[in-house]
């Protein structure tokens, strides 16, 4: 059971990465494309959390003066990294959606293939 659990995050992360990349590569709608990009980013969240996961660990809450938690705790650093990553991801998503709104306003379409294209 534990072997399955410890490999599950990696398998799901690889699946999310592949799905997201496929979605971005084949997308015909900018909003769909941005969401697929978020799927790619969520694979990184999962890898980070998977790295910090310990079997049977509790939340890494440490209070000064109080006795430390019995047994192992999850690694708080990766959780902090993951939160930072979520913020970064949200910024990028917001910016891209703003661009998509602009595209819809100026070009009247959300299909990236029907945009005025830059070639060669």
């Amino acid at each position: 059971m534990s072997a399955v659990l410890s490999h599950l995050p990696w398998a799901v992360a690889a699946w999310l990465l592949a799905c997201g990349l496929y979605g971005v590569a084949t997308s015909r709608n900018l909003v769909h494309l941005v969401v697929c990009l978020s799927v790619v980013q969520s694979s990184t969240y999962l890898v980070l959390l998977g790295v910090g996961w310990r079997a049977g660990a509790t939340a890494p809450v440490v209070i000064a003066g109080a006795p430390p938690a019995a047994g192992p705790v999850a690694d708080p650093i990766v959780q902090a990294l993951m939160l930072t990553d979520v913020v970064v991801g949200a910024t990028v998503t917001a910016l891209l959606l703003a661009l998509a709104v602009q595209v819809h306003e100026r070009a009247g379409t959300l299909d990236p293939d029907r945009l005025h294209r830059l070639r060669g």
Partner: protein
Amino acid sequence: MGAIAIVLPLAAAAFLGALGHRLPRWARDAVALAAAAATTALAVRLALAARDDLLVTWLGGWRPRGDVAVGVALAVDAVGAGFATLSGVLAVAALVFSLRYYESAEGHFQALVLLFLAGLVGFGLTGDLFDLFVFFELMSVSAYALAGYKSEDPATLQGALHFAVVNTIGAALVLLGLALLYGATGALSIAQLAGAVPRAPRAVATAAFGLVSCGFLVKAAAVPFHFWLADAHAVAPAPACALFSGAMVPAGLYAVARLDATVFASVVPPGGAGAGSLLVGLGTLSAVAGAALSFAQRHLKRLLAFSTISHAGIILVAVGIATPEASAAAAAYALGHGLVKGALFLGAGLVLHRLRSVDEVALRGKGRGLVAPALVLGVGGLALAGAPPFATATGEALLHRALEDAGWGRLGPVLLVASVVTGAAVLRATLRIFAGMGPRLPEAPDEGGETSEPPETRRSRGTPLTMALPALALLALAAVAGTAPGFADGARAAGARLVDGRAYAARVMRETPIPAATTRPDAPGERRKATERGAAAALAALALAVGVLRRTELPPSVRRVARRVWVPSIHALRALHTGRVGDSVAWLAAGAAVFGGLAFLLG
């Protein structure tokens, strides 16, 4: 001092973002310029202080306990501080150049440039892998916004989207590699990782190397991760392009060089062996493909953008070889190229300002009498080809020597030809626009933003001094750096320090003094030979440019060969550049998979 150099532009950007709209235009410009100039001055001081030492600052006083880095360090060496200085100089030039930009009326442009600068400076100074990623993202997001600045034009939006999507995926790859490294070693400090990664499972280290390298190579625009670059440069305002090509693309190369010397020293041995040969191969491919694509362009900014791919490829070859001499070449070349390319993009901005277009063919002969833009583009083109006394020539000379010493001497002529071709492309455009040379060609249909570019500024009589001066100053700086007596030796010392990951780790973790750099001086006559080679390269570029412009006078046999070889191959190459975001992402995924596979085979 390092922390102030990061916080200062961040604080100024926040100030402008929050209160900029309440300030008069001159006050916003003054705040932005003062912040950028002060940051540059701090970076220069850091670079001078870091000549003989690695400056380590543990933020918040969290020093390492034993072999564990508890806190986050700034670790500043000459290359990192030099990178920060280059970024600062380009930011100041871009801000001065954009004083006349009416789009920046809301103050967002200046704030974005300052955010971008903060990201670049932090990127150069940090000694922590996760901080490296955060500064990388800070620089990326502000760059996406800068690229999409002229948001009224659908082509701009498409270029900015392309840029943002591809680079976000690159950043995700970096983060995945970083997570693997942390999982295997429990470390994020670059110095601690340098000691811990060799003890980690080989497969994890190689996989992390593949992910992190691909992620940073997206930013460095190495083939096949480069498709976004020309689109981003074609649509971004000219001063932003100067920062993109001069500082952001080298940032990716800097990260690869820094991490290969420390974290991945066991995967990338010096001399271009193992996975290093992969970087050398990608660099050569980028140098050749970028030069050919650059030569095929008629849109001035796209021409310069593709030449950036070529020159980044040349630097990547040096980074892959990773000997002290090669790293010195990479640092000197990146500095010279950054200054010259920055000047050239500002020159393209001058052309756009005066002639309202950047299409080389449509502008044939229309630039007669425009002295400043002609001077910038002409001299810049020669410097790009490696003409002395510019710093690009010094980098080229160091590179030549490094290639021969490392047993890669056969690559020398290939890379030299690539830089000559990019220089020739710029000179061809200069001669066509400002001297009216070349046959009259049919007007191109205005298709796909390939030839058109909406003007960015209000018309003016004459060339404004605030636009001409920054471009000329950047060229002058490149010449000053190239002629400074200590430049080559300084680059050698900096390169030797950059590749000595062991000394870096010992200095950061245990305060062991950095050993004095031992560099080999030039052999007698070597400098003269390098100068002659540089001059010959510049003349070859000029000859190629004139030859192409006066091709109707060439013997028919030469023209037939050129038509049979050049035309089909460049058509095939350009056909790959569909401008579709999906295609770029597919190339990125396939390229990363192949890169990772080869890294396992070679590493």
